[in-house]
């Protein structure tokens, strides 16, 4: 199977994952195209580029610098401030001190992380940059470690440091949602690590601590996020990808997502695999511009509320034909057709200047 997946990506190495890319797997879970490409670890940005629909997910230097600076500030002095923030937010007494283990840096990080995190003991401890892994589509992927695991009062909490501000107790909801699903990735991986070592996975709390700058200053503030719902979504999508054989079976023979392939061949191959484009894809998937182009003329490309308001009729051309009454509706379209005809009549009436 790994051979087939390798073949799909054109022989290149599978794309590296981090919590953000894994979190992105849960966007649009109903899309087969995405499930196949992500399972194969295909290089979607390169694909999009090759197809003539380059993605725009660039990051500003300013944002990166600021993120790094804030993180360094929060972790300074062996994590004293971090420990206080986390303990106070969890409502436990602030310990006099905690061990600080940086698991980043040199080799063998997986083994060192495993050893450190599963060793037992329940004294207060902070583990920075633990290297965690998850099984994605039958393959072990390592997550770029961008978290601190805090052990306090015998339980582990994932701590995420983000540089978006919390102003008067409120943060950008989209950013909080993204942080929640990313944290859920870490919670899941940490739980699996403990379970594999024969320890209780529930030692890892579903409450993660989010640390952000407070108001307009650099002072950090901690908030709690309950990620149980995100864990469910994540497990479901990973389970779907684990059944990668089923997915592969549906693929046409010779299907390729090799970024080196001829663009026309690539496009033809991708068109064969069903997608489910929605405007949300624009913020979540590198293939969005390609899929949007393909979905032109579809009501779904206008957003789900529009499609629903049009009686669920998929093609714009059909909507208009039914609305104008120039097409006899299929039996299951009768209701939608009546609605569309009434809408078209009322719209024309009002636009013709008839007063209401």
């Amino acid at each position: 199977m790994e051979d087939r997946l390798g073949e799909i990506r054109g022989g290149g190495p599978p794309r590296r994952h981090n919590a953000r890319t894994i979190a992105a797997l849960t966007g649009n879970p109903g899309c087969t195209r995405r499930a196949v490409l992500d399972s194969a670890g295909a290089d979607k940005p390169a694909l999009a580029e090759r197809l003539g629909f380059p993605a725009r997910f660039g990051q500003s230097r300013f944002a990166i610098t600021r993120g790094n600076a804030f993180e360094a500030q929060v972790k300074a002095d062996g994590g004293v401030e971090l420990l206080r923030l986390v303990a106070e937010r969890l409502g436990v007494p602030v310990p006099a001190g905690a061990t600080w283990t940086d698991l980043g840096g040199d080799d063998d990080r997986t083994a060192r992380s495993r050893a450190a995190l599963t060793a037992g003991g329940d004294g207060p401890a902070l583990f920075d940059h633990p290297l965690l892994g998850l099984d994605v589509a039958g393959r072990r992927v390592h997550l770029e470690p961008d978290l601190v695991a805090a052990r306090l009062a015998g339980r582990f909490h994932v701590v995420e440091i983000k540089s978006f501000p919390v102003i008067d107790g409120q943060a950008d909801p989209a950013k909080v949602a993204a942080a929640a699903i990313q944290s859920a990735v870490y919670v899941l991986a940490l739980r699996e690590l403990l379970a594999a070592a024969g320890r209780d996975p529930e030692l890892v709390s579903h409450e993660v601590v989010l640390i952000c700058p407070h108001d307009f200053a650099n002072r950090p503030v901690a908030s709690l996020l309950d990620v149980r719902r995100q864990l469910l979504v994540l497990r479901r999508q990973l389970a779907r990808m684990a059944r990668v054989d089923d997915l592969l079976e549906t693929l046409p023979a010779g299907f390729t997502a090799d970024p080196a392939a001829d663009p026309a061949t690539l496009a033809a191959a991708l068109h064969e695999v069903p997608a489910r484009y929605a405007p949300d894809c624009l913020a979540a998937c590198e293939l969005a511009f390609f899929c949007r182009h393909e979905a032109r003329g579809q009501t779904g490309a206008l957003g789900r509320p529009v499609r629903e308001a049009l009686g669920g009729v998929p093609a714009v051309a059909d909507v208009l034909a039914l609305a104008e009454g120039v097409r006899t509706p299929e039996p299951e379209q009768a209701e939608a057709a009546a609605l569309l005809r009434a809408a078209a009549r009322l719209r024309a009436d009002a636009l013709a200047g008839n007063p209401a």
Partner: protein
Amino acid sequence: MSTLRALARAQAVAAGRAQPVATVRHLHLSDRPLVLVPLALAGEANAPLAVLVGAAPDEARLLVVPQPRNRDQRFAFAAELAGIVLPYLDSFRGVTEAVAVDRGRDVRHRYVDAPQLLVPNPAGITFLRLFGRSTRFRRPDGDHPVYPSVPLLGRWLTFFAERAEQPGSAALLAMTDALTLHWATGQSAVEDLHLPAVLGWLDPPPGSTGAEAALRAEDPALVPPAGPATDPDFDNHRLAPAIEAYAGAEDDPAAYDELAGLLRGQLAPTWELMWRGVGLMRALPPGARVAGRWAGDRDAFTGYAEHVDADGGPQPRRDGAVAAALRLQRLERALTAWAVQRAYDDPLVMAEHRLAGEAFVGEVTLADPKRVDDSGRRPVLRPRIQVVTVEPVPMPVGATLYSPARPGQKATVVFVTPGGDGKTEVVLELSGGMGRGLTAPAGSVPEVGERICLTSLSDGYLPGGVFPTPEETPWTHGGPPEHHDG
């Protein structure tokens, strides 16, 4: 999303051009709106980078923060912006008019006109709200003194941001919202947040379709984003080197000009689009109830100006429980009123309600304008009319309906008789809007042959709830509002 609006989107796709979803303008548009196009530095908590601001197309003024992380420069920028915004606001504080209150027993005064702020998109409103928040508690004394105009600007920006939450207010508008209230594009609501794409659909360049224009507008290398977020490529390859060069050149005017020119280049295209948007909106005739809502904005402006004059404090960080509940109720009422008023003003909006079974249009086939009901203590004028319609009439007998043509009159459903030919006969009894006598003045009762719209939507006054004063609020509900110092 109403089916009517969704259909307009589908038609826009097919036509390759935006389609109208309104026949009148539902928002007041000032002769002299203050257009603001802000940019913020990526990654920071609402750190301003630049703004292009002015009240006429040829009056654009560029303000720049050459080192956006520098606190002093940020407040110097705030003072400069205050130097433009505050005189603009003051220019509306000349002439007042007397408004009768308390049933004519008293009068109050309000300004005959009020300021209007326009930004490109909802994120621009958020930017102003947060900029107001970051400046309104600043003090001209103490550890980090700022110019006295800075907290004043903060209060006013907060005032506008709060007004912008009120449905139907036109004090601060996002151009994308204002345009898509009147036209449907052939793209999704998410894509409608991008002003260049919206204008691409509304007014595509000759020879290209709306879809093509919108696509082109999405490429930040061709069309800069409408802010406040900048294009990451621009940040990395052009802005960052220019900021560094300026920082290294120690106030060298050439380095400043370089940086300012770069930012102007990002802002100027949006500035043009803003005024094109203004032009498109101006071409629509205003709806009948627009002036009434604008009077509400003028009231609010007058009230806040008086508050500021009286040295009233800045808006609290968060509302207390009573204030929050009152505010929520006010917003809900405004939302209902706004939806109803737009329907009354605009047959194309009323059509959405007709489709939803909240209104129907028919022809008056019988009228008894002299009918008097004398079953009560004294006789009253209660004319009856019969209306025949081909539209569904889901309203029950006894329901009260209204007609936009005679908003002061109630029509009670007496009989609903469906005919075999798809037509429905509705008999209605009228009250109100006919004077006090037993004879209806001419025109106050619909005549036979008149086409009439009847709706269950009421434009009437909705009474508010009664809430305890802050002092009476139990501490479990927030108690008296906290004090704010900074």
